[in-house]
């Protein structure tokens, strides 16, 4: 239909058709369709059966997949990650693999086509990965789903970034129910700003990461998922990791903290998990006066205030799990490193009981 000065006005149906076509065009580039003809014979296909960091098996499987993907890219091959038989998919595993795939494409001679993937056959997992924008660059269109914040990535705090992110979260996760400046909004702001600051302060302050930072900035990836009144957030960075960052504070501080946390079960092991545990304790020990980031301590406070709160801190080879219910810590060591830090936690929101947002 033509109106006024010849401006073409498209109807709703046409607009939807256009959006669908655009979305399909994007997805064609990154997703491998069932047709085997699309996969070049020289492509390296990596089968992944568990996409999680919560189990030792899954943690090892993701690490192996990432290792082989990097080797394949280095050898100039295209890589296809086949998750069709995946039996366990969690946000932390997906976030890590997503980041590695995006970075892999940066290094691949084939560019965006260098790393592609096949989604799981399981509808629940497929839908989950689909709505979080798994494996897709930020500018690719993803069908929005209430309760899921697609993966966001950033490199440096720019003015207005947090407001934009919070507005987006409010729209996607809460159907704009959050009051700007209200308690939930404020909790979210604090959690996100400290998590981002933590990355900027600790993660990339190392000579080894200079080249990475020059190329890609102090990059982080973030995703969110709302389930009823619980908001799950996860942030991943490819920095030096908490254990190395903590050791850089000096032997004296590490030794003092070792004595302070020696009574904690498992903390005396000396592995990455005990260093993460020490770093968490250090933030609240009073030894730190002008610490750079209050990040971990701050995040933990919100988890503590949540009766169903859980905080998972994965960093390099270690993992520390904190349960608010009984205020216990669990320390776990893995054979493989995640080459960075992934923090996943959940906040309890004070939303009205009969919220309009979907409870997924």
């Amino acid at each position, binding site marked *: 239909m033509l109106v006024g000065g010849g401006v073409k006005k498209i109807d709703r149906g046409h607009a939807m058709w256009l959006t669908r076509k655009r979305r399909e065009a994007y997805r064609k580039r990154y997703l491998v369709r069932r047709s085997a003809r699309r996969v070049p014979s020289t492509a390296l296909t990596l089968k992944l059966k568990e996409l999680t960091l919560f189990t030792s098996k899954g943690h090892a499987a993701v690490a192996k997949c990432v290792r082989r993907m990097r080797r394949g890219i280095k050898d100039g091959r295209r890589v296809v990650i086949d998750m069709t038989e995946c039996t366990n998919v969690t946000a932390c595993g997906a976030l890590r693999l997503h980041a590695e795939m995006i970075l892999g494409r940066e290094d691949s001679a084939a560019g965006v086509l260098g790393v592609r993937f096949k989604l799981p056959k399981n509808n629940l997992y497929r839908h989950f990965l689909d709505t979080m924008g798994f494996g897709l660059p930020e500018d690719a269109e993803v069908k929005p789903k209430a309760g899921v914040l697609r993966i966001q990535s950033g490199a440096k*705090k*720019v*003015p*207005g970034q*947090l*407001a934009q992110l*919070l507005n987006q979260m409010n729209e996607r996760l809460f159907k704009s129910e959050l009051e*700007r*400046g*209200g*308690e939930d*909004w*404020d909790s*979210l*702001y*604090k959690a996100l*700003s*400290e998590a981002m*600051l933590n990355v*900027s*302060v600790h993660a990339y302050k190392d000579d080894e990461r200079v080249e990475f930072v020059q190329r890609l900035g102090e990059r982080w990836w973030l995703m969110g998922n709302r389930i009823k009144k619980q908001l799950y957030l996860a942030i991943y960075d490819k920095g030096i990791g908490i254990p190395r960052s903590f050791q850089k504070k000096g032997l004296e501080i590490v030794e003092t903290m070792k004595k302070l946390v020696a009574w904690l079960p498992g903390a005396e092991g000396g592995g990455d998990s005990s260093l993460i545990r020490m770093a968490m304790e250090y933030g609240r020990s*009073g030894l730190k*006066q*002008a610490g*750079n*980031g*209050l990040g971990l301590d*701050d995040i933990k406070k919100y988890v503590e205030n949540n009766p169903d709160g859980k905080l998972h801190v994965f960093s390099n080879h270690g993992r520390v799990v904190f349960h608010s219910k009984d205020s216990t810590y669990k320390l776990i060591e893995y054979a493989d490193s995640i080459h960075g830090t992934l923090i996943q936690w959940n906040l309890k929101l004070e939303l009205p009981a009969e919220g309009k947002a979907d409870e997924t």
Partner: protein
Amino acid sequence: MTSMSTAATNNTIHIARQFSEEPYGRTQDHGDDNGERFRHQWLLPALSRGQRILIEMDGAVGYGSSFLEEAFGGLVRLGYYNKDQLREKLTVHHKLSRNVDLVWHYIDRATFGVDKGKREAAEKRWAARH
């Protein structure tokens, strides 16, 4: 952003209107709207005039703990004012009382003068930018 004279005339610092709607981070490394800049550009000049000042925190997108610790806790750590002096000179207001409590928590927790050695460097950094 309004000029410093605005703060001087009515003894109120409205963070969102006069400084930034999105205060974030500790130092310049973390962005322009950091706690160190707020301390040097707004808090210290206003406190030096000797009158009681009101910090109005309403209207901002939010307040990160690092910003609040650096801006307010930093006044004590760097040895500018002790806790009692700040109790006499400052009134803090925000619609969420927990943010007001947080400001006083960081002031109370800080040890007076513990980072005095860093004060000179902070002042130099600030002077270099102006």
